């Protein structure tokens, strides 16, 4: 190999690796925690591309990872907007990573579902329950209550998201806790339940486990109604959603504008859009409960479980949940893991 050959090789590899340096300049924005398969963010991002001409790549972080990334990048943020489970709103505000922005219909949002100073607001909410792949149960009865999950017949079949970093994981602990008689201050019933659940060898993923329910790996997942409905109506899977008989909680999902983000104008336009009629209808189509209930048509309503079932579900107090979330994670870590 002489000098010319070497230079040719080096030149070739350099040339092949350089093209990507020049990037197309389109209007874009970055969203943290906009997973394409969750709440049909994929469809929403496409809609944003069509209606607003803003290109937003999907992002698969969960609430905890998104907050951690925002804090780590505080000096020079990468993201423009972020989507969280409700209890992360107060936390994100306290961490100083959000900046106030009140979209047009902000004041129409119920006061328990928005930050009083405009740092974050609810766009839709869902109900926690049991997302079941009935075929993967192989003949076992579909569980109807939280306590049913402790039945040894479901050994190895139950999953729940990690309370240490996923919003729905923390919601699971508090939902069980409140359903079994606990309070936001007294976490004993909930923690004890999960400790007892260990005997049934649960699987504890960190990120969404939708695929694993469909594939039968996790036949019973503590998850939201919208994921179960999507499995049943979009992916035609043998999925059922159960609202446990002891009761459960509903979690609002919120969005906020990232402080000192690179594209704040695009970020604001997107936040306006997710609260617009068209945006809210999209959430309804994705089996979410839009924060403006009027956007829900009768046709959409027909796909949910009957209202009588939903009477057992209460909206969770996100401020109290935010205050309790450190304790939940700590106790879970110490007593259950």
């Amino acid at each position, binding site marked *: *190999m*002489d*000098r010319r050959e*070497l230079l040719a090789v*080096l030149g070739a*590899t*350099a040339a*092949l*690796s350089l*093209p*990507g340096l020049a990037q197309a300049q389109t209007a874009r924005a*970055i*969203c*943290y925690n906009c*997973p*394409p*398969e*969750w709440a049909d963010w994929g469809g929403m991002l496409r809609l944003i591309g069509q209606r607003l001409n803003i290109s937003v*790549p*999907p*992002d*698969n972080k969960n609430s905890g990872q998104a907050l951690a990334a925002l804090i*780590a*990048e505080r*000096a*020079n943020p*990468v993201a423009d907007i972020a989507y969280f489970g409700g209890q992360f709103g107060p936390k994100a505000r306290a961490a100083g990573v959000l900046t106030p922005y009140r979209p047009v219909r902000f004041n129409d949002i119920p006061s328990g579902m928005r930050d009083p100073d405009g740092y974050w607001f609810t766009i839709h909410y869902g109900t926690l329950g049991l997302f079941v*792949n009935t*075929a*993967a149960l192989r003949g076992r009865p579909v569980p109807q209550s939280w306590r049913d999950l402790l039945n040894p017949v479901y050994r190895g079949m139950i999953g729940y998201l990690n309370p240490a970093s996923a919003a729905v994981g923390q919601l699971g602990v508090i939902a069980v806790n409140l359903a079994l008689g606990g309070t936001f201050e007294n976490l004993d019933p909930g923690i004890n339940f999960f400790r007892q659940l260990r005997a049934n060898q649960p699987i504890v*993923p960190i*990120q*969404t*486990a*939708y*695929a*694993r329910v*469909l*594939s*039968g*790996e996790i036949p019973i997942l503590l998850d939201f109604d919208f994921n179960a409905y999507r499995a049943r109506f979009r*992916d035609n*899977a043998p999925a059922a959603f159960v609202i446990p008989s002891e009761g459960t909680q509903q979690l609002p999902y919120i969005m906020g504008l990232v402080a000192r983000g*690179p594209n704040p104008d695009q970020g604001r336009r997107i936040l306006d859009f997710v609260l617009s009629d068209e945006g809210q209808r999209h959430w309804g189509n994705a089996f979410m409960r839009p924060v403006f209930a009027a956007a829900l048509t009768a046709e959409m309503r027909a796909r949910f479980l009957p209202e009588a079932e939903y009477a057992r579900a209460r909206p969770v107090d996100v401020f109290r949940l935010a205050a309790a979330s450190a304790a939940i994670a700590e106790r879970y870590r110490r007593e259950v893991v």
Partner: protein
Amino acid sequence: MRKRGLAYWFLLALTLLVSAFLIVPVGMSILAGLTVNYFIGVESGLTLQWLAQVWSDHRHTVFLSLKIALACLFCTLLIGVPTAYVLARRQNAFTRALEELLVMPVAIPGLATALALIVMYGGMGDFRRSWSFILVGHVLFTLPFMVRSVLAVLSSIDLKTFEEGARSLGASFTQRFFGIVLPNCRSGILAGSLMVVTLSLGEFNMTLLLHTPLTPTLPVGLADAYASLRMEVGSAYTLVFFIIIIPLLVVMQWAAAPARIGTGQSR
């Protein structure tokens, strides 16, 4: 001339079992990526729809991974080959310390290296958001493999004699480097190159923290697919990964083999 005793058959069985352990899941995964419905199994039929879906939704991750791997190769060649040469020429406390230092990114968990880069350079917005941020991590991790590969070859030949001979005939340093050193470590460069590209394509630990939604690589996209999409899509995505990586591994095997015979040095 050893008779084929019991030990032979036992070891053959063990070898076949281990090979099956490693390969059967690969086959199952490939099949899952081509099946209509994973839960039902092969009875549901075979299809290319998942591959098509992966290609249309995720091919940007494939191109980015390939781009980073090639850039990584370029950098490790530029940085690593001269380093290996110096390490072969001189063996003292300083060069030993340097070797230890080079190995450190392999010893320290990828998460830590990524965290370190983020706390140091996370504030530089453009650098943080570009794919070169990921490239830096990959070069740190793959450099010792290139250096070790070239150094192994250089250590096994009598470099000093060749160079002294050439120098006594009046050759300058650059003439010696390009005319003697490089041709002689060709096999090391080739083996090292394949190793670097392969490792870069599969790197996940560091890339998970270093990437942004604008710069997802194949392994990161793959992890996302397993989490949130159907198993069939994840498997099809893995199949795409296999299609890229398996030819590289085969070439790596074939290229390393002739080097083993004769010089007796390892890969």
